């Protein structure tokens, strides 16, 4: 067993996800998967994750999620049964066992498929058929794969797969405060709020800086460092150093 664990530690990169690892561990129990001891399997998996941690191997998140879930399952199996909990730990263990059996069966099925007498490898079709007369097929040939691959190519061409999330240009309240404070020294006379805003052609940034600068001015007015004046609603807002 020790030896096996060593091998596993070295092979950490070889697993296709936690289920793959669990199946490999289950196979070490050398029993029919239907007779598998889930508790022993959980111990093995958690032990494996622990030793990987000690070796400071980077574990992908899904391995850790599985570890957490198995730890939960283990405590459920060991602790006195709580009838409130649905599904029961035994049921969860059984489902896990089924999953492992199914994956194992599919893996086995895959290798049996590959081992069949395959055309072009073990058996061969006629090399040079003459072809039949009655072909009412369209002379134009295309496969569904060609079609959807073409559409994929067009889509990829038009919209690069890499999505760069455009950073929306905004002026933060902190930036506005700094800017207004710095400019206030020059505002001995009443100055329109607009004069404090950065010049920009970007309407988003213009809106954002107006809103932030207004808030910044309210804050500075509260601190008594500037005065605000407006003749009537929606009229120009005038600012002056206090």
């Amino acid at each position: 067993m020790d030896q096996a664990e060593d091998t596993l530690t070295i092979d950490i990169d070889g697993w296709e996800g936690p289920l793959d690892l669990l199946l490999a561990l289950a196979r070490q129990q050398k029993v029919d998967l239907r007779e598998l001891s889930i508790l022993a399997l959980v111990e093995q998996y958690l032990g494996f994750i622990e030793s990987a941690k000690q070796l400071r191997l980077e574990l992908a998140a899904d391995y850790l999620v599985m570890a957490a879930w198995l730890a939960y399952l283990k405590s459920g199996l060991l602790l006195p049964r709580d009838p409130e909990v649905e599904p029961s730990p035994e049921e969860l263990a059984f489902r896990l066992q089924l999953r492992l059996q199914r994956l194992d069966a599919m893996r086995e099925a895959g290798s049996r498929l590959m081992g069949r007498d395959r055309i072009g490898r073990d058996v061969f079709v006629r090399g040079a058929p003459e072809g039949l007369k009655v072909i009412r097929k369209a002379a134009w040939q295309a496969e569904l794969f060609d079609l959807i691959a073409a559409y994929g190519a067009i889509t990829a061409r038009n919209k690069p797969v890499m999505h760069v999330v455009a950073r929306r240009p905004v002026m933060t309240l902190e930036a506005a405060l700094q800017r207004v404070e710095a400019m206030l020294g020059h505002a001995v006379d009443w100055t329109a709020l607009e004069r404090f805003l950065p010049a920009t052609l970007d309407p988003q940034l213009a809106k954002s800086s107006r809103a932030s600068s207004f808030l910044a001015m309210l804050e500075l007015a509260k601190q008594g460092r500037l005065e605000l004046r407006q003749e009537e609603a929606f009229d120009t807002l005038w600012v002056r150093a206090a």
Partner: protein
Amino acid sequence: MIGHDERAVEAVLFAAENPLTKSEIEAAAGEGVDVAAGLAALAESYADRGIHPVERGGRWHFQTAPDLAHILRREREEPRKLSRAAIETLAIIAYHEPVSRAEIEAIRGVQISKGTLDVLMEAGWVRPAGRREVPGRPLTYATTAGFLTHFGLESRRDLPGIEDLRAAGLLDPVEDMLMHAEVETGGEDD
């Protein structure tokens, strides 16, 4: 003396570039040919020969006898090699079809990487098979007649061990995978 039915069916199958259904053989062989009788006679005539007529997914073609593989295989390129992921995915589709990508991923416990399904579709073994009428309407996948032909299966019933697996409940619809619900939805590729 060999009957006309048998000879006509034989010539049609030999000349055809692809496996043919019974009605395609009928259309090619012309009026008055009993295709069923011809196929039956043909199977018997060729039982011990170096080539055989075979039925795959309801389509017939001639192919070489498997025991002669060793002489024919030489100097030929092997067909496309598949990755382990592609082999497993193919098996899952064949045994569970129609099956959605999420279901395949639930069985394998990992996401299908790019280039797995498209390799199988390009080989002509897997095709989109309609959408499932559940929320999200996921596309499902199934195998093709070309899959049966390539792997020498008369029908999906001939998939190795499929009856035992079904009896053991291992081919039941993929259930909600509790702990995996989180992992899988969390990792959805963008």
